[in-house]
């Protein structure tokens, strides 16, 4: 999985270098600034971010569009659903 839409994200949250729980906390805060249907891109280097964001999206009812593990970081696309 790789090809995110070129202009897929309405908001980028850069959590490079930040450890748990900050990627989750900052994502939770940032997604509230989006309208329903808009997409947030989280960039994170915390090695636990993939299971964390799967858990967070499933619990909060937001849509995990994809997780792209690139050389520099995880890039995670989430659509605000409610």
């Amino acid at each position: 999985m790789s090809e995110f839409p070129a202009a897929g994200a309405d908001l980028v949250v850069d959590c490079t270098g930040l450890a748990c729980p900050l990627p989750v906390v900052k994502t939770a805060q940032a997604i509230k600034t989006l309208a329903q249907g808009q997409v947030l891109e989280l960039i994170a280097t915390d090695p636990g971010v993939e299971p964390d964001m799967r858990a967070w999206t499933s619990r909060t009812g937001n849509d995990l569009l994809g997780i792209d593990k690139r050389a520099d970081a995880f890039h995670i696309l989430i659509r605000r659903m409610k």
Partner: protein
Amino acid sequence: MWADDSETKVLYVQTHGVAEPGRSATPFFLAASAAAMEFEVMIYFTMYGPTLLRKDVVDKIGPKGDQGQPLRYFIEQATDLGVRLLVCQPSLDLNDLRLEDLIDGVEMIGGAAFNNLAVSADAVISF
């Protein structure tokens, strides 16, 4: 005391205090994560736990002692997301503390309230 019966509710219990800085921050991390998941979250400080909430402590120590972020940073990360902090009088007495010695916003409960919170929570996690 839980605000919403329909929410998932997690109660953390912190029994360790300033003598063990390495055990001080994790309950705040986990509580912040839980609140970010839209759970209703409280942390109950008992035994030595209330010493972590002292006004004259929160800016001085963190999980790595006097290095790195102080406790206030981790506490506010949690409380900014709605996590509530609870203490009980016997634990304050044990540590020769008064509620006024603690940071603002800490709520006083007793044993019956604690037990009621515990049996009505979805999870109780004790440190």
